[in-house]
């Protein structure tokens, strides 16, 4: 569907001034990590996971070569507090760094707002919203309206007691339509207590199923989203943001359009930084069970996808919950195509028993989204390589 209006995509690009202005005036860069005795950002307590990320801006490259300005989270793991702003400015990643914790662990997630270097006129706070966290409290929910959010140059440490396993994701919730369109999204998973025990030949599971029905051998993220290039260009060039006209025409898996989805290397941005670090190539040995951790965080589209494996998608989890009724009835779904609306997450098992070794495809059946903008044969597609035993 076409938009009715298009805002200034052809406005003359401003020369960019990257200001590493001293933000120390009100700077509170503080990574909180209980049990970290030697200052390396890792807790000595095995039940505590500490992660350090940053919120700011950067650049990415689309699969047709178009460079686009983004906001997102960067990876400040192991970076000393006094180096975070300097080192992580313009180092936003798409998607944001993946966070994995085990059921029962406590996550101390510090997010430092390093500011938007390309837009020194903006002073947006940033937050982290753990999408789907059960029984959340607003102070750590990342919704800016009922909580404090970190201003530029400052950190906020979020605390989560990860008691419910499943496939989640996280994103900034400040001016959500803008910050999410600009790319502040990442994968977040909680592995179940059942992991490590052996049931039905598996030691990794999506949930505490008790019977191995969510057991898998290999897992892969399938984070769906899209970019509206006109919106990103407007943001880059200090123009009014076209909310009403917003329409994603660069659909992506894990931050890339096909064929970049199958490229095992980082995709470099215009500054030579590998902002897009998450390939989407899915590989398995014939007979293995693949777990796809699927979510959609597009601000304009829902996406439907299928695979050409010839085996169904077995949906065992939805919204970080095992598909079982209140009294234990099996409500899992067996489908060939799955529609994922914004905000939805699914756990999909592909059982490759009987699948001949070879290359197959995971792709959107919303065929118009097999595009990188005006370039065909791109978009939401990746390859599944089944290797012989």
């Amino acid at each position, binding site marked *: 569907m076409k938009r009715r209006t298009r805002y200034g995509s052809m406005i003359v690009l401003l020369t960019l001034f990257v200001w590493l202005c001293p933000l120390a005036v009100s700077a509170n860069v503080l990574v909180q990590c209980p049990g970290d005795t030697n200052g390396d950002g890792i807790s000595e307590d095995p039940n505590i996971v500490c992660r350090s990320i940053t919120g700011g801006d950067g650049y990415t490259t689309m699969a047709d070569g178009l460079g686009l300005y983004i906001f997102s989270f960067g990876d400040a793991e192991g970076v000393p507090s006094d180096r975070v702003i300097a080192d992580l400015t313009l180092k936003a990643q798409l998607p944001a760094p993946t966070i994995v914790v085990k059921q029962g662990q406590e996550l101390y997630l510090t997010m430092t707002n390093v500011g938007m270097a390309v837009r020194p006129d903006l002073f947006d706070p940033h937050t982290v919203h753990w999408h789907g966290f059960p029984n959340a409290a607003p102070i750590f929910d990342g919704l800016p309206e009922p909580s404090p959010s970190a201003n530029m140059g400052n950190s906020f440490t979020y605390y989560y007691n990860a008691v419910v396993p499943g496939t989640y994701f996280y994103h900034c919730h400040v001016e959500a339509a803008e910050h999410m369109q600009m790319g502040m999204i990442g994968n977040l998973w909680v592995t179940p207590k059942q992991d490590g025990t052996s049931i039905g030949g598996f030691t990794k599971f999506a949930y505490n199923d008790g019977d191995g029905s969510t057991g898998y051998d290999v897992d892969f993220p399938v984070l769906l989203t899209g970019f509206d290039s006109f919106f990103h260009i407007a943001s880059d060039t200090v123009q009014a943001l076209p909310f009403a006209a917003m329409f994603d025409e660069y659909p992506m898996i894990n931050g890339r359009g096909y064929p970049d989805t199958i*490229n095992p290397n980082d995709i470099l941005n215009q500054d030579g930084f590998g902002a897009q670090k998450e390939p989407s190539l899915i590989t398995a040995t014939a007979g293995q069970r693949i777990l796809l951790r699927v979510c959609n965080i597009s601000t304009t589209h829902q996406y439907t996808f299928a695979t*050409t494996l010839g085996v169904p998608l077995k949906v065992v989890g939805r919204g970080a919950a095992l598909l079982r009724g209140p009294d234990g009835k099996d409500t899992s779904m067996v489908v060939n195509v799955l529609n994922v609306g914004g905000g939805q997450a699914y756990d999909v098992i592909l059982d490759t028993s009987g699948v001949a070794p070879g290359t197959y495809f995971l792709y959107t059946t919303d065929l118009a989204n097999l595009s990188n903008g005006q370039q065909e044969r791109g978009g939401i597609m990746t390859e599944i390589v089944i290797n012989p035993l």
Partner: protein
Amino acid sequence: MFLKKTITFQGFFLFVCLLTIMVGKAGAAEYWLQVGAAEMTMADGSKVPVWGFGLDQDSNFTTTGDHAVSVPGPALRVGADDKVLIIHLKNNLSEPVSLNILGQNLTNNSGPVWTNFPNDTETWSGARPAGNYTARVRSFTHETLPGQVGEYRWESFRSGTYMLQSATNPAKQVQMGMFLPVVKDVGQKLAYTDVPYDSEVVVVFHEIDPTIQNAIAAGTYGAVPGATIGSSVDREAKYFLMNGMSYPDEGLQHINGKVALYEGKRLLIRFINAGLDTHVPQLQGLYMTLWAEDGTRYQYPKEAYGFSLPTGKTVDAILVSPKEPPWHYPLYDARMNLNNNGVYPGGMFSYIRSSVPDHR
């Protein structure tokens, strides 16, 4: 046993039973299909170029004029006892084609086929060339080149309602109309375990953007020199069809055809979305029972008067005749695609009607 039964809607839609087509292969459904270009007339009289499948009537690809193509293509049946589906495909287009059925295993697949996009001067088959991260897939399965005949075999064919589609540049070829229903029951008039039916109808939803389809037919679409449209990302459909027809086409006045549907009789509706957009089939005035999705029977059926049908999905529903005839109930798209190029009434609107055979 199996009798040849043809239900025709404006000559577009055939239901073919296996026995008359089978050529000496026990336990196999075998069809000869051609794919070619044609012109389709919309409900408002305008014409749109399409690419569709047609059955070759004498299964030898030699007699001219006996393979009119249609969109949707002819509905094919795989017998309940057939384990194998074989399709011989003759390509009358000027670009390669291939076939795939989501949810079924193409046993003799010797593809996929990648090209050095955008020039497409080099191809690789079977695997991506090592270290090459710029080649793009053109076909999910092995290709049948223009003028050639290809064979596609699905062994251990699963029962249910499916859709056969082009597996070559699907955004282009499936959009142009290369799709058709394929159904397999588990027994005589038995769609799934404990799901008997008296009559059936397939309802295929799809849309047409004439600007894109004209560009595809003219060769000015895609990553080709002189293209006016590069991709379908800005597609804007102008026509909305059920079984290749739009309201007020005659066939939609009684979409389930003149098959017995009266007191207590069960109509099996096989919904298929062959389009590029989600549709929401909705029945006005009745509930139906949803029994299966993508060819897999639900463990527990659902009672609903409407449901979301995303692209590529099939849903099987049973509608029981609620009362003595005559009755009719609207079946339409709750996404409100009820126009023909903007003019109301039109688009995805039809009636399910009762029907009492003369011999009753």
